[in-house]
């Protein structure tokens, strides 16, 4: 989860007259996790559905509501049209079609504000922006820009001075040689043209979503800002711009619109009109399990920084544009609950109208555990996702048909096991210094490919000691089948890569082969660094019970 740093020095200014303890107490009830606290400040984790929490301004906005310092939708009065415009050419449509923008005037960019804005930009890029694919942000010094701007697409030999450099580079060079170029270049490759935002004098503002130009860079002396958001997704770009607008307004800037001109179409951005969501007061109460009057509901919503009015039995909630997480009456219900205070909700226990029951499988497996435990066997637990080395190479089995996963982060977990026997031997291999005899069993899923994946519940057991033998394990197996399932079995001589040739058999129950039993091949024992003989069996419980409809 993304993290916001709330500096102690700012907290006092943004939430005056409230103790730090009170703030710490309230943060979790706004849905924020406290990641760390020290003398410099509080580090807060926020959930990705609340990108408006990506700066301390956003968090303070919510806390001020819960503490009733300020209620209802925060005020953001758009200045009248700035008169500035961005012309969008048709060339850019195929590459990165969306652009929206705003101007922000008269604020002060303190160091901490700049830090917050940079962190917000990063979070928005990764979250809503989906690593800049759907939307990316460019911040510019408004006073170094001459309108109108043009958003167009150019070929890769176009050259300009990218941010932080002192000389011209071609787009091809930038994509090849800079870190951001390598990281984000693939988002605009695919055609032979690259998106570019330039001003009236052909000064380059940005090569979205890769890098800005150097001429419009923002510094501590910047008073007026131009913010442009480009992307492949209009809604994501609007969301991002709305959150930035609210944040800059909180930072003391006056927000003005920019006209986007594409062919004959003109739109003013940012579009910040609130959305109305109408919810039955009864429904809101039902979700919470409460019985609040309309006025109480409205008060709760206002504490969650949302304006609302009652219309008969209905509540009309005005959702400001930056609250991208609210789209349905149920989201409004949660806002009521947060405003009411989760800590004020008293748990109620709904009595059961149904009888509880464990599954038949659980009951069968409990019986298996009891029986094998009765034979002195200890249950081990292995992973379904195991290593090729343990599952196949140790037994010199071909892993051609192994079900493997994409991009595993560790070699211990790369393929789905098709048998439990390797897991048991691996468990034994980790206990060579423990007292013998050792008798282990495992119950687990196995996975089989070739067409649709088939899963089955298997039971495997192994005995390991100087006198471990086929006869011993066969006795246990017979006992298990007889005591648990009332089944007699036949052993039919068969070869298996796990077992010594001539000392292994197929297990046949009701004319169906349900598993294998034998003495483990010495080569496998040696591969597993085991020094005593091991005999083992494995049966597929699903095969035995499937016909009876006992296991799905």
């Amino acid at each position, binding site marked *: 989860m993304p993290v916001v740093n709330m500096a102690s020095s700012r907290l006092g200014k943004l939430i005056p007259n409230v103790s730090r303890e009170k703030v710490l107490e309230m943060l979790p009830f706004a849905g924020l996790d406290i990641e760390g606290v020290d003398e410099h400040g509080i580090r807060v984790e926020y959930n990705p559905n609340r990108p408006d929490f990506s700066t301390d301004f956003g968090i303070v906005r919510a806390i001020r509501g819960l503490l009733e310092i300020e209620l209802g939708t925060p005020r953001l009065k758009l200045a009248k049209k700035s008169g500035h415009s961005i012309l969008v050419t048709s060339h850019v449509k195929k590459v990165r079609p969306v652009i929206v923008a705003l101007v922000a005037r008269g604020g002060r960019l303190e160091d901490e504000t700049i830090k917050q804005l940079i962190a917000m930009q990063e979070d928005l890029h990764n979250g809503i922006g989906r690593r800049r694919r759907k939307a990316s942000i460019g911040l510019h010094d408004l006073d170094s820009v001459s309108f109108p701007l043009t958003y167009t697409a150019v070929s890769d030999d176009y050259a300009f001075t990218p941010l932080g450099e002192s000389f011209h580079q071609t787009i091809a060079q930038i994509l090849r040689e800079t870190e951001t170029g390598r990281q984000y270049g693939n988002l605009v490759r695919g055609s032979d043209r690259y998106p570019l935002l330039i001003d009236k004098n052909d000064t380059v503002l940005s090569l979205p979503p890769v890098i800005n130009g150097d001429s419009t860079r923002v510094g501590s002396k910047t008073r007026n800002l131009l913010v442009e958001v480009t992307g492949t997704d209009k809604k994501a770009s609007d969301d991002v711009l709305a959150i930035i607008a609210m944040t800059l307004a909180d930072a003391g800037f006056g927000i003005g619109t920019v006209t986007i001109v594409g062919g004959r179409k003109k739109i003013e951005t940012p579009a910040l009109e609130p959305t109305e969501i109408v919810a039955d007061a009864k429904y809101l109460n039902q979700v919470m399990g409460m019985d609040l009057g309309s006025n109480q509901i409205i008060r709760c919503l206002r504490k969650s920084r949302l304006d609302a009015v009652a219309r008969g039995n209905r509540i009309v909630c005005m959702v400001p544009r930056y609250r991208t997480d609210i789209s349905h009456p149920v989201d409004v219900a949660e806002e009521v609950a947060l405003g009411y205070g989760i800590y004020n909700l008293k748990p109620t226990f709904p009595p059961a*109208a149904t009888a509880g029951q464990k599954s038949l499988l659980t009951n069968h497996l409990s019986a298996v555990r009891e029986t094998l435990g*009765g034979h002195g066997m200890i249950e081990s637990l292995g992973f379904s996702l195991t290593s090729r080395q343990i599952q196949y190479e140790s037994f010199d089995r071909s892993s051609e048909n192994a079900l493997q996963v994409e991009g595993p982060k560790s070699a211990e977990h790369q393929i789905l096991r098709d048998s439990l026997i390797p897991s048991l031997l691996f468990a034994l291999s980790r206990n060579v210094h423990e007292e013998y005899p050792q008798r282990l069993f495992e119950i687990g*899923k196995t996975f089989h490919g070739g067409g649709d994946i088939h899963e089955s519940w298997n039971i495997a057991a192994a005995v390991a000691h100087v006198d471990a033998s086929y006869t011993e394990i066969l006795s246990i197996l017979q006992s298990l089948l007889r005591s648990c399932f009332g089944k007699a079995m036949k052993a039919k001589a068969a070869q298996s890569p796990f077992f010594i040739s001539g000392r292994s058999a197929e297990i046949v129950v009701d004319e169906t082969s349900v598993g294998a039993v034998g003495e483990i091949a010495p080569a496998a024992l040696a591969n597993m660094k085991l020094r005593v003989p091991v005999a083992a069996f494995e049966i597929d419980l699903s095969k035995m019970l499937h016909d009876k409809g006992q296991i799905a």
Partner: protein
Amino acid sequence: MSGSGPLHPIERDILKSLAEAGLIPIETLAASTHLDIDQVRRGVEWLKFKGMISVEESSSFVVLLTQRGQGAATSGLPERKLVGAIKGGNDTVEKVRQSGLLNNDEVNAAVSAARRNKWIQFSDGGRMSLSGAESPSPEELILQKLRNGSLDLSALVEEEMRAVELLKKRPDYIILKEAKQTRISITPAGKDALKNLDEGHVERKLTTEMITSGRWREITLGPLDVEAPAPAVYPGRSHPLVNIIDEVKEIFVGLGFEEIDGDMVQSGFWNFDALFIPQDHPAREMQDTFYVSGQTQNIPATKDQLRRVAGVQDRGWGRGWKLAEAERMVLRTHTTPVTLRKLAATKPDVARFFSVGRVFRNEKPSYKHLVEFNQVEGVATAPGLSLRDLMGLQKEFYAKMGIKKVKFWPTFFPYTEPSLQSMVYNESLHKWVELFGMGIFRPEVTRPLGIRNPVLAWGGGVERIAMLRFGLDDVRELYGNRLSWLRGVPRCQL
């Protein structure tokens, strides 16, 4: 004697030997019992502890011969050789030297000893004559005595003591050594114990023959040392984590929940799409989720379900929902697809289901994180169920697990609204720890599947509970299968 336990066969043999023997050295005891000295020493320790014998430790000096002393005992002391030489006609010291009968360096010592014994007299010209040299000197007498072994100094008479003193002055004939001696005698308690033993014919082992023949009437079965430890044996048992899972299942059953089970490999559709998780959600990327390589399958859903879920996805997240993405097979990242499929298939008005099973996350395993772990999940649906009911079910569940203090914080999950996380107070760690996440299924999840009533859902990892219960600080221990742990961890945590 009470509490001293029955007698070991060694103890019995020792007591029997001592019964008539009085105070005897331990070596003698070993000989009379035909036990080896170490067995006797052990038995003596046990019996002494039980007060059945008394043990006297004494130490004394013994004198014994060196190799040179042994030689002298056989072939005579130098003064005896001198007497021989004089008898042979070598009547001056000079002649004795020349005769070679004595070593050169012995001659002076021999002469002075012979004079001390008054065996020789010197006359003019240095001629030596013998007198009274026939009887042995005290030194010779003690030497002969020592030929048969060491002598205790305390057992010597005064004259012998003087002889020892003299011999001591000569270089390297005898040595004096301190010797420890252990002597044993039986006590009245020991005699009593012996008496008890002697009553009747004592058998060590009850046999089938004794039981069936009725001979058991004539014999006495000797008591066993019931207080001695027995060798360790280990029971077969189910895995401790499985025990915790069973416990969780019992609680669910007690709260009216029915258990369900399903596949671990699920389509993206049921794992994500049907849960209103957008197809470009970061959680669906390969960094977090395991996809089975090259595996796409027909989605086990009706045409209607596919169409409606696709519609909700498009409306919620913008057009562009792809069937192909939904068909990719993933190792389930939670058990919710199992629950959801059950709800979608049965569309119950009132139901309570739970499931426990393995879920997967593509992470690097660490002491905190496993790639594969068990998730427990419960859902309850009925008309009018609310957030407070959800909280109430949690409280009840935790109370049955022995957890008293619970609090709830709001949080976010893509498929529930409102969403909460529970914090429970751990009494042994003295801190709040996060446990289950929960919420009410979003309408975007329930409506396309025809589920009408609110669905309360919650879940979390079982391993976390097991770690707290067993006091583990590395979660991997639960899957390490170390027998030392599995054989030792108590089945019931008192």
